[in-house]
């Protein structure tokens, strides 16, 4: 549990973060979204004290984060930045072992942990452990960056535009991997992004920031359905909104009784993908198939339209 209470940051006369109060529940992902200069990165960096707050308190699991020295605090919090920031002069294994080394873990424990993480991130330890960062692809570097942040098993992971340097196809894969990883490890993640799509896709809750203030902090469906201010509405993009709403839910939740002809749609696909398939096929309805390959019903244009409409 992360609690920010009336947190502000001033540089001279300018206030870059103004009186932010928000709580991130354990084992969830909070996405902070905003334009550049909105104060989102400063807010993130105050959590691990790379920036010291001018006012307010930040509590991690109920304890004020100023009760330990900054460097000890940071060893307990994973941190991933855009462009990964891998140490170019250290091998992949040494990079991942950074925090364990700082914590003085025994060699065998560190090695086992490095191998475990490499395997988790689909990088063969035998092949990748001894490589230098420049010998990896962009997607591999990004994964090593996340592995390094997770090395000492932190409860909290801070990510600043972690996928910013990746091309769209690799980014989609990295985002999906992060979601399944978080579901598996239960790590609390606070993620900063300028991309509302990414925030909607990854965040259990989204904080929209502008000019240092949090304008709205709510689950994605709420942000899309009931934007609190014109700025949030503009950020969400009125034209795209129905499709974003549909993209939040799987087809499984929109299944209706009945049997129809056509190419079946997977129950795990998003409702947005289902609508696209319906429109493309020209049919009013298509069958829905479960993960086991059983047809469990149909999904209809009319049904999805209703779900995409502004909630009352």
């Amino acid at each position: 549990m992360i609690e920010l209470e009336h947190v502000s940051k001033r540089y001279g006369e300018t206030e870059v973060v103004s009186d932010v109060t928000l709580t991130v529940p354990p084992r969830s992902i909070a996405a902070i979204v905003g334009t550049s200069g909105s104060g989102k990165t400063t807010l993130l960096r105050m959590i691990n004290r790379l920036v010291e707050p001018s006012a307010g308190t930040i509590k991690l699991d109920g304890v004020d984060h100023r009760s330990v020295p900054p460097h000890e605090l940071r060893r307990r919090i994973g941190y991933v930045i855009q462009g990964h920031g891998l140490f170019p002069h250290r091998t992949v294994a040494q990079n991942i072992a950074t925090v364990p080394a700082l914590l003085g873990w025994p060699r065998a424990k560190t090695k086992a942990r490095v191998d475990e993480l490499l395997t988790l991130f689909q990088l063969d330890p035998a092949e990748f452990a001894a490589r230098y960062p420049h010998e990896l692809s962009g997607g591999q570097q990004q994964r090593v960056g996340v592995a390094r942040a997770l090395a000492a098993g932190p409860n909290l992971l801070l990510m600043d535009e972690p996928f910013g340097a990746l091309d769209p196809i690799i980014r989609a894969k990295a985002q999906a991997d992060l979601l399944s990883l978080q579901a598996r490890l239960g790590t609390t993640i606070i993620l900063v992004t300028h991309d509302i799509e990414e925030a909607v896709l990854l965040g259990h809750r989204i904080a929209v920031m502008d000019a240092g203030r949090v304008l709205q902090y709510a689950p994605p469906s709420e942000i899309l359905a009931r934007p609190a201010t014109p700025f949030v509405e503009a950020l969400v993009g009125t034209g795209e909104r129905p499709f974003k709403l549909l993209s939040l839910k799987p087809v499984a939740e929109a299944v209706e009784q009945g049997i129809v002809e056509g190419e079946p749609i997977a129950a795990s696909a998003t409702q947005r993908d289902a609508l696209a398939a319906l429109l493309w096929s020209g049919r009013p309805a298509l069958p829905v198939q479960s993960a086991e390959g059983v047809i469990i019903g149909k999904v209809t244009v009319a049904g999805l339209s209703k779900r995409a409409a502004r909630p009352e």
Partner: protein
Amino acid sequence: MRALPTLARLAALALLAAFLMRPDWFEPVFRPLTENGAPAIYNQGSLLGLTLAHLGLVALATAGATALAVALAILVTRPFGAEFLPLSRALVNIGQTFPPVAVLALAVPAVGFGATPTLIALFLYGLLPIFENTLTGLTTLSPAVVEAAKGTGMTATQRLARVELPLAAPVILAGIRLSVVIGLATATIGSTVAAKTVGEVIIAGLLSNNLAFVLQGGLIVAVLAVLIYDGFTALGRVAGRWSGGTS
């Protein structure tokens, strides 16, 4: 095709060693350069001794210069010394316009003749390239890497020792390399202020119009400079192996 240059270097080293140990073997080579039966091989002292003294002087001065220059560069890149950074850059720029000979000559009035003024001149002139390169190395680190080092919870000292200095090492080594090569040359001139260096051989040749002396003194220093330069280049390559050899 790395083998050929390596062989050439080994051959040069072997030849140099042979010449320093047994200069008389090479007498026929230098004989044609002498006139009126003048000696073809330097006979006023041991070539090996002079070469070792020369190297010792350069090594001592460079070691001192490295210690001080790196410490100063670290100081002005920390928050405490940041105030001195612009000035120190300007001073390095100005300092490098001082010719090595002038530094040597100006040291004599302060400390007299012998090895000391040479040592001082080598030390002072050696400071500049090392300081400048260390400064470059420490101020051009990727901000993402520095940020990541902070984010992983390294203390300021750990960041310096584990990330900043290792990353700057190839650039620092290039600075030391430049210092050593300049030092080898300046040490030669040191014999004009009575320091024991290979310059003695060259000066003796110039004074007695004996080209054989000039050539052998010149060759010793030149081969030393090229070999040491290569050695530092190789060392820099090892220190920078993580970059994929692009630097």
